[in-house]
């Protein structure tokens, strides 16, 4: 660990803190229908979208209506993305002549982008035409991010409103987030990325003759426009197979740094939007603090694990002081690789600038734990906030049990229905993650895809289902996941992980919105102070720790001790 590395991490934290309030205020203006500085330009476009869709912006939906609109929109998105992937050979923008994509891979990829997972069973530059990248994948990057933020807005309205049936209009939230937040930010970010060397072209592969006279084909494409939304929307699906480790996706340390900031920016801002909408900004900062502490713990452990280098290689005469460089890029070094891995798994991004499979056992375990905890450490855009708030409900429920009072959160009584829905959302994730892993490691169709043997092979399978159900999309990428078994089961995991959290969350929002607000009394547990921060972290760690510790013991932990004993597999 170097002093300079810690300075980079500290600078990252400072910038995120500085952005949270301004971005939070902007997002609130979108959630509450207020005007902002972009309104003069975009209001006509927004009204045009509503007119064509036949929507009245003032018509609000109850939670069932909101959820139905979202699901139908997802079905349409799936059909379109699947159709494009299956027919890319016949579509324009295919200079490399990429072949049609097989049904299981097209299904897996469409689900993956629809659910904001962006798991890649395919290698980008060797599989996808430019039409697929732009029209199938980039569109879903925008839509899954916008839908995530929309659902967070609806969830927050459940707390900020009282005695009403409606939680907003899905179409309006989706449109406003896309037009006002995502597209303008992406335009600025895309141009910055190109200025730094990220390609943005429709031309085909560059054919070069290297200095030593060999042939080198260099894949390019409309990379920057997809890269921008991949980060801001916490999508993570790379244009290239190597994702943000590829010099064309991530050419400099500055780009890398801003990519990390853009992963966290909106997720962090949503905590502030929440605080403002419930009329107590401190509440937002309390959530920010809980997330921030979990982030710092994760990045510290990972940094420690990676900076010390692989002892087996050090014994062969390799400079251990340079850290574990397998799978990492020189321009990022250990500090930025570790920070990126933490950020991408805290949020449900899944982009990687270094190969997590080649991390040290405990260095690779931390990203896995970040996802297992539910990606509530800032989290995916939208999903991080409502995911955290589900844990907050459990936290106040536990606090209520301890003192024998009906738990309250923000003046709303938490009753049996909300707690049941919360537990449904929280428990479906480990069920999918551990259940599928248990199957995959005992049947031939599962194990034949593993690249590593021994405990690391188990970690590979576990990481895949954790990543899919968590809608993360990063991987222990040695796994050859492009088989019917893996494509199918991972696709199911992604859908359960997305919709079995969203639908209970919306149901809670609906029942919360209908409740009256109880004025705080002397017995009310304050949820904007350090006691709440500590309790929330405790609940998150206990739920995550108890559920996943046995699986982690079979994978990374046993591998760590094997490594210390010098054992290889």
């Amino acid at each position, binding site marked *: 660990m170097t002093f300079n590395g810690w300075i980079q991490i500290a600078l990252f934290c400072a910038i995120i803190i500085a952005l949270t309030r301004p971005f939070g205020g902007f997002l609130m203006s979108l959630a509450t229908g207020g005007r902002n500085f972009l309104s003069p330009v975009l209001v006509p476009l927004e009204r045009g979208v509503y007119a064509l869709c036949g929507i009245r912006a003032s018509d609000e939906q109850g939670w069932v209506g909101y959820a139905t609109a979202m699901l139908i*929109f997802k079905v349409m998105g799936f059909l379109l993305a699947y159709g494009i992937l299956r027919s890319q050979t016949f579509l324009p923008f295919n200079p490399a002549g990429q072949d049609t994509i097989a049904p299981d891979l097209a299904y897996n990829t469409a689900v993956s982008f629809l659910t904001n997972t962006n798991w890649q069973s395919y*290698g980008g530059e*060797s599989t996808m035409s430019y039409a697929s990248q732009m029209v199938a994948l980039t569109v879903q990057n925008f839509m899954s991010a916008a839908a995530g933020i929309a659902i967070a807005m609806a969830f927050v309205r459940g707390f900020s409103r009282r005695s009403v049936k409606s939680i907003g209009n899905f179409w309006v939230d989706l449109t406003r987030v896309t037009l006002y937040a995502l597209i303008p930010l992406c335009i600025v970010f895309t141009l910055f990325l*190109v200025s730094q060397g990220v390609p943005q072209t429709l031309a085909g592969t560059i054919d070069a003759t290297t200095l030593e006279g060999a042939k080198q084909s*260099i894949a390019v494409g409309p990379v920057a426009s997809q890269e921008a939304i991949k980060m801001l929307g916490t999508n993570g699906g790379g244009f290239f*197979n190597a994702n943000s480790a*590829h010099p064309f996706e991530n050419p400099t340390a500055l780009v890398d740094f801003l990519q990390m900031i853009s992963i966290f920016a909106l997720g962090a801002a949503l905590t502030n939007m929440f605080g403002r909408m419930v009329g107590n900004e401190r509440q937002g900062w309390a959530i920010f603090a809980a997330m921030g502490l979990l982030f710092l713990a994760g990045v510290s452990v990972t940094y420690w694990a990676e900076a010390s280098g692989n002892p087996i*290689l050090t014994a062969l005469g*390799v400079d251990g002081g340079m850290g574990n460089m397998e799978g990492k890029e020189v321009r990022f070094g250990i500090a930025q690789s570790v920070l990126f891995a933490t950020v991408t798994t805290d949020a449900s991004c899944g982009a990687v600038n270094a190969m997590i499979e*080649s991390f040290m056992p405990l260095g690779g375990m931390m990203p896995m734990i970040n996802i297992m905890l539910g990606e509530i450490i800032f989290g995916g855009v939208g999903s991080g906030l409502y995911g955290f708030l589900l844990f907050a409900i459990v936290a106040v429920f536990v606090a209520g049990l301890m003192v024998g009072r009906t738990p309250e959160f923000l003046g709303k009584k938490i009753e049996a229905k909300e707690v049941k829905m919360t537990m449904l959302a929280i428990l479906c994730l480990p069920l999918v993650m551990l259940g599928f892993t248990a199957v995959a490691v005992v049947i031939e169709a599962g194990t034949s895809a593993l690249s590593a043997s021994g405990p690391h092979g188990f970690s590979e399978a576990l990481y895949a289902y954790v990543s899919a159900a968590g809608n993360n999309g990063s991987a222990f990428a040695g796994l050859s996941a492009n088989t019917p078994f893996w494509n199918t089961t991972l696709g199911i995991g992604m859908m359960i992980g997305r919709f079995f959290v969203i639908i209970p969350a919306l149901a809670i929002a609906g029942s919360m919105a209908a409740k009256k607000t109880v004025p705080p009394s002397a017995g009310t547990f304050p949820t904007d102070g350090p006691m709440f921060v500590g309790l929330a972290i405790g609940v998150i760690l206990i739920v995550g720790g108890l559920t996943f510790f046995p699986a982690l013991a079979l994978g990374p932990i046993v591998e760590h001790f094997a490594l210390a004993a010098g054992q290889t597999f």
Partner: protein
Amino acid sequence: MITHLRPALVMIVLMTVITGLAYPLAMTGLAGALFPRQAAGSIVARDGKVIGSSLIGQSFTGDTYFHGRPSATTTADPNDSSKTVAAPYNAANSSGSNLAPTSKALVDRVMEDAAKLKSENPGVQLPADLVTTSGSGLDPDITPSAAAFQAPRVARARGVPEATITALVASHTEGRLLGILGEPRVNVLALNLALDDLKK
């Protein structure tokens, strides 16, 4: 439910036009106008011939050039398309080795590379980046210590004083941005181009 069908259908079409066509195509046009060199892939040419991209590493094996890091990229086996064979710095199929830290294959590979490197420059600790593959398999850079490690070999092979080579490496070493971001590095292709210019 029927009431949601029209908005869903129109919305997906509209958003596809806006975010899937208008946005990337407008960005392509704008990027090409503002930053034509970068947008096309930062192509490096010499004597009118394309020799690569300044951002993408390429394979060097001769003694007269600095070598980049080992690369784990592959290509389809020409004899059996269901298999792959090693093809370092294949920029049409980026990938890392994805080998575990406890992988026997990793340790064997490093052992073999380390033996070669030690015979070339005995008694010096091996820079980690020279025996590890990068995440993309296309890393254009090596660390300054990896360049320093190779300088004696390149000097011998070219019959140039080592001090000249060391000075060239120093002038091609890029520091951290603002002294903070990233790590010091040397772009191998740029350094090797400068070596060739030295001759003239």
